[in-house]
């Protein structure tokens, strides 16, 4: 019972925070007043590409598509390489997922452009490739952490491979997998800003514009919502993770 009240409280806190965030990014007037006050010498303090709300929308869509794909493929690969028939690919998957993390995201992006051009698609591909690795790693770790005794007992009761996966291995590793998804999504929110360099839009565009035009007001318009968004998504997925372990 105690656990349930705690999780309800954290959901309410999250909803309040999300509401405040929404209010903040839709108050264009507020941004203009405050930024003009901080940077009185700057002529244009609001990024002209679109409203903040739209930029956040673009950004979220980039992250949602790439992280969604990364989750589907990451968990899928993690499951396949821990099956008897996929075992031979387990070392490959483990090595790839640790190696992949050492690549800087900009490099992945640069490599994606020649193949896919500019804009939304190459950015999603880059984010997908970068985001899939923690998910694969955590899925493998989660499934491998299920004790062999529990699995043997499960097979001993006459469960099929699929039933052991669905009823034993996945429920027991769900929390670790979820935490991989959370890490991946949060990394992607930050990394997605880089997408603006190849015209994918999102919160990266005011940041890039601010850097190029030496306009710190633009920079703040991108950086502050991006940071808050990362925090928001992190708590959202964190709450899901916690409610899973309480069950």
């Amino acid at each position, binding site marked *: 019972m105690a656990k349930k009240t705690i999780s309800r409280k954290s959901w309410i806190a999250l909803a309040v925070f999300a509401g405040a965030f929404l209010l903040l990014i839709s108050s264009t007037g507020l941004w203009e007043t405050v930024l003009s006050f901080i940077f009185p010498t700057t002529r244009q303090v609001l990024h002209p590409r679109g409203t903040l709300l739209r930029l956040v929308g673009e950004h979220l869509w980039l992250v949602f598509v790439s992280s969604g794909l990364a989750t589907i493929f990451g968990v899928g690969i993690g499951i396949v390489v821990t099956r008897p028939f996929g075992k031979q690919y387990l070392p490959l998957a483990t090595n790839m997922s640790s190696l992949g993390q050492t690549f800087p995201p900009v490099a992945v992006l640069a490599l994606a452009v020649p193949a896919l051009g500019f804009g939304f698609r190459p950015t999603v591909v880059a984010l997908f490739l970068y985001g899939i690795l923690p998910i694969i790693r955590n899925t493998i770790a989660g499934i491998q952490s299920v004790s062999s*005794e*529990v699995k043997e007992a499960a097979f001993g*009761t006459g469960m099929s491979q699929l039933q052991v996966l669905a009823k034993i291995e996945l429920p027991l590793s769900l929390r670790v997998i979820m935490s991989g998804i959370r890490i991946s999504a949060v990394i992607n929110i930050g990394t997605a800003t880089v997408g603006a360099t190849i015209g994918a839009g999102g919160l990266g565009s005011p940041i890039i514009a601010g850097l190029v035009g030496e306009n710190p007001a633009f920079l703040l318009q991108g950086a502050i919502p991006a940071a808050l968004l990362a925090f928001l998504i992190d708590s959202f997925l964190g709450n899901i993770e916690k409610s899973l372990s309480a069950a």
Partner: protein
Amino acid sequence: MIKLEGITKRYDDRTLAVDNVSLEIPSNQLTVLIGPSGCGKTTTLKMINRIISPTSGKILIDGRDISTVDAKELRRGIGYVIQNIGLFPHMTVRENIATVPRLLKWEKSRTQLRLDQLLELVGLEPSVFSDKLPRELSGGQAQRVGVARALAADPPIVLMDEPFGAVDPLTRVKLQDEFVRIQKELSKTIVFVTHDIDEAIRLADRIGVMKDGKVLQYDSAEDILASPKNKFVHDFMGSDRALKRLSRRSVNEFMEQSKPLFVSKGWEQLKEVKESFVWAVDEEGKLIGWIHVSDFKEGKHLSEMLTELSDDEMLSAESTVKEALSRMLESGTMALPVIGKEKEFLGQISMYKIQEITRNG
């Protein structure tokens, strides 16, 4: 009946775990496989439900070659209790036990009924334990749930791999006692692996002693204790074989009837006593002590001559003869009284009788 025909298991690294084992495991009996670690007893057990497949040889259950049966199907008909219990940590006690009924697609009401029945059978109050998670249970309780899960769909065969290995000695003895009671009630075909010789002797109808992948001797528990085939079996059974045999005998088999004295009644009863002493009971027939006949003097009331007995000096009918002997040695007496559940006097067992048992086997 489970029949093992020339079963051999050689692992990929060429180690020979089980070497040409043939056994006939009778139905409705408890067969123990025992031996030092690495002797192949667990491997042998796990080949019966195909967790491990033999390199060569055949296993038949009621005449049917198990390699021709679907493994899932086979396992649903065989209860399985493993060393560290292997309860599913994310499922409640209820869900754990209901695993096989669910796989067999039993109706909800039937499963529910069975759950309560099983929890009571293993001595756990359903209303208290049903919704607990495994991590909220003590070792002994978890073990009981493990046994209940194995028995859930009422399988004719149950395989148990050191099921009581992970609990403290006190709990272990308690679980063994209850298990003996359960087996008496259900008479399943049980194959039980252990390295604990006392446990084997307590539980087994038949014992197979294994070493280096081979079965050295396979006999009834009594025969193995009475006539070990070779030095290894002899040494493995221990130098106290005679005592161990006594632990398989219960007191009520060798109890002698004797007429107790009612303390509340008159001294005339003493005239009928032929022994030098007599057990004394109160008006309800409950045992309270004993009386030396030679202490008798005219006019003395019986209660004045009474020597009271402590609980340690009374045996229950279910006690083993070994226990009786131990109590006698402790209290320095040649005989001890046997009582029922309500402390009512049932009879006595004497040192003389115990010697007779050990002499005649």
